[in-house]
């Protein structure tokens, strides 16, 4: 079984100069709760230069959740804002939340790309999706 979270973090680290993250500067930590332990991953962004490492250093923003919940967010099965409001994930902000907002958008765009590439199941078809012209 592939490790959804590791794959995501690896990809994030290789995402230097991804346009969505180009204006992001700051740190964000994922605290992933497993059965017995918490894994902490620190993501550091400096105008598009990104590094990811295991660390419990303080961050501008900390996102904490059960492994399964974080996986759902990464795979686009759980809307991040809904998850936050519902108390499924905890978000602590020590500073400006721009990094968080941009990472949320990056994650959404990644879901879109993976669906197009067949790496994630396609979204359920809406009953009456109007046909758009695709240029």
């Amino acid at each position, binding site marked *: 079984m592939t490790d959804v979270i590791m794959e995501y973090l690896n990809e994030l680290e290789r995402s230097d100069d991804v346009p969505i993250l180009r204006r992001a500067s700051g740190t964000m930590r994922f605290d992933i709760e497993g059965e017995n332990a918490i894994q902490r991953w620190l993501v550091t962004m400096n105008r598009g230069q990104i590094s990811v490492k295991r660390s419990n250093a303080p961050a501008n923003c900390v996102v904490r959740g059960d492994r399964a919940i974080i996986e759902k967010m990464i795979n686009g099965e759980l*809307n991040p804002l809904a998850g936050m409001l519902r108390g499924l994930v*905890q978000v602590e902000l020590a500073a400006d*939340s721009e990094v968080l907002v941009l990472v949320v958008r990056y994650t959404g765009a990644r879901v*879109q790309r993976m669906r197009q590439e067949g790496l994630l199941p396609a979204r359920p078809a809406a009953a009456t999706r109007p046909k758009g012209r695709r240029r």
Partner: protein
Amino acid sequence: MSEQVAILDGNTFVVSDGCGDIEATPTDTVGLFSFDTRFLSTWVLTVDGHRLNALSADNLQYFETRFFLVPGTGTVYVDAKLSVIRQRAVGGGFHEDLIILNHNDKPVSLAVRIDARSDFADIFEVKNAEGKKGKYYTSVEEGRLVLGYQRETFIRETVISATGGRCQVDEQGLSFDVRIPAHGRWETDIEVAAIVVAYHGRRPRGRELRKVKPKYAHDEHKARPNIGQSLEQWVAGAPKLECEDIHLRLTYRRSLVDLAALRFSPPVSAGHNLPAAGLPWFMTMFGRDSIFTSLQALPFTSELASTTLKALGGWQGARVDDFRDEDPGRILHEMRYGETAAFEEQPHSPYYGAADATALYVVLLDEYERWTGDAALVKDLEYEARAALNWIDEYADLQGNGYVSYQRRNEETGLENQCWKDSWDSIAYADGRLPGFPRATCELQGYAYDAKVRGARLAREFWNDPAYAEELERGAADLKKRFNNDFWLPDKQYFALALEADGSQVDSLTSNIGHLLWSGIVDRSKAKAVAKHLMSDRLFSGWGVRTMATGEHRYNPIGYHVGTVWPFDNSFIAWGLRRYGFAEEAARIAAGILDAAVFFEGRLPEAFGGYERELTRYPVQYPTACSPQAWSTGAPLLFLRTMLGLEPRGDDLVVNPKLPGGAGHIALLDIPGRWGKRDAFARGRMPLRHRHVTED
């Protein structure tokens, strides 16, 4: 029912009766609200078991109210030997100072009681009254009353405590055993904290029960806005208006103060402040409203525009999501934080169902740079602007005919009409029929055209991409050419309101054609006919341009989008008329709406009746829950810009005033921009043919 009093701080607000009491029914819109949730539905003060009577209620500041109360029932109070003062400051819940003065020669003993309850209704439920799916709980912990609501891991709590005054807490409220000596006083501080319990039922770190506090403490009356500048700094930093017309000065001042109150720093907004749509119910991020208001305010402050661009850019759509009507590049419509958003029963997390906000986003970015010269932000938001421009062609062309149109994919809770006229009957044929979907309303094409033209400038000057600039310009020219053929009604000499899927022209005469002038999509040869229609008796009421012309089947002078006059709408129509050289017509509209503002003490409502001005002599307000409304607040600012003919040209500000006759002189000093600060002076000499002067 006594008058309602509303005070607020960000998205936390209290609506109570004139005594400060809250007694909500499931559908009543009173209570303490925060994060789109009602945290108190009952908050009733009694003395010896009796309710109190209000002598006065004064809104001291936007976050603070003082109620003067006396015991007694009915219209004649018999015992005024006691005064009760209730002073309330909103923020993170509220803080309430309760003071009782004994004016008698003898000591008194009183049983003072506050009953407290909460239904934790979602703002959407307040309007729809649905049953709750979770469970309520109440407890007394550490001398505090905790009112709670839990549904799975979703928890919201109201924590109530009092200091001083011999308080006893039970599960229904607070009781005070009060003894006051002759001519003495008694007081207590009550704190009500609204808590979003963040994670798996655990209160957030640092928010343990004893640490939970509302924002303002006892005797703290200085505003601590969540936003950068205080009200005084905000008003002092705005251009100064000098003019003979005292009403215009009043309206200008009112607009600045109200815009300050509407500044809003929503949670998870990247820390930015932007104009919320309206107080108190729409204290949240709205794409369209924030963009229009930022455009109106640009000559006066650019802060709203820059923050709106950053926040909306941060939340720009990234994927195709039918429930949220989200597409890559689409700018959001509305964001909410209540239970229905949390459980995805409403799509506002955020919801993207607006067909205009995305093009308007690019329009705002360009206009912002023209005023400020802030090239850095234009470069920072290149990706967002390109994604927005891409959305227009890639995702908005639902009819496959090269026009922006809309049809919701979320058929249950999505919006049917995704343009600013979003009520169900706003888009209709002259004979009253409603067109099918998708619908391509005309103003959407204007916005798309303007976005391409402006996007081309940005691509050439800031993104170093002349090829993309040319592509956008070709697309704009093509759109303009097709539009002037396909939407034009040769017999009627105006543009159709919309095209429906089969290409039929929806032929009502509406104010939408005014927005087309603003966007510049109208052929010069057709502009005169459009201006003539806008100023005709069918559309122009004497106060302003109606949303729909008299004589159309669905016209109704008090129909929300089918006959009322909207100040915001008129401010953009006047700007459009000015763009095409109809300065006199623009000034007439400005004069009409600014005259109307006098009747509302300078605070323009969202809309007023489309009745003929000479018939009613005063503008009949359309009943609405929100006041002030952001884009009505911004309208006088845009009228000033239009009347003064303010236009950035390179690094200079051009001033080319055309005032209504009788306006006297107007001076606007210290207009900020890439030029530093400039002054504009004007004198109203232009005679107006049909100006109806208000009788005193």
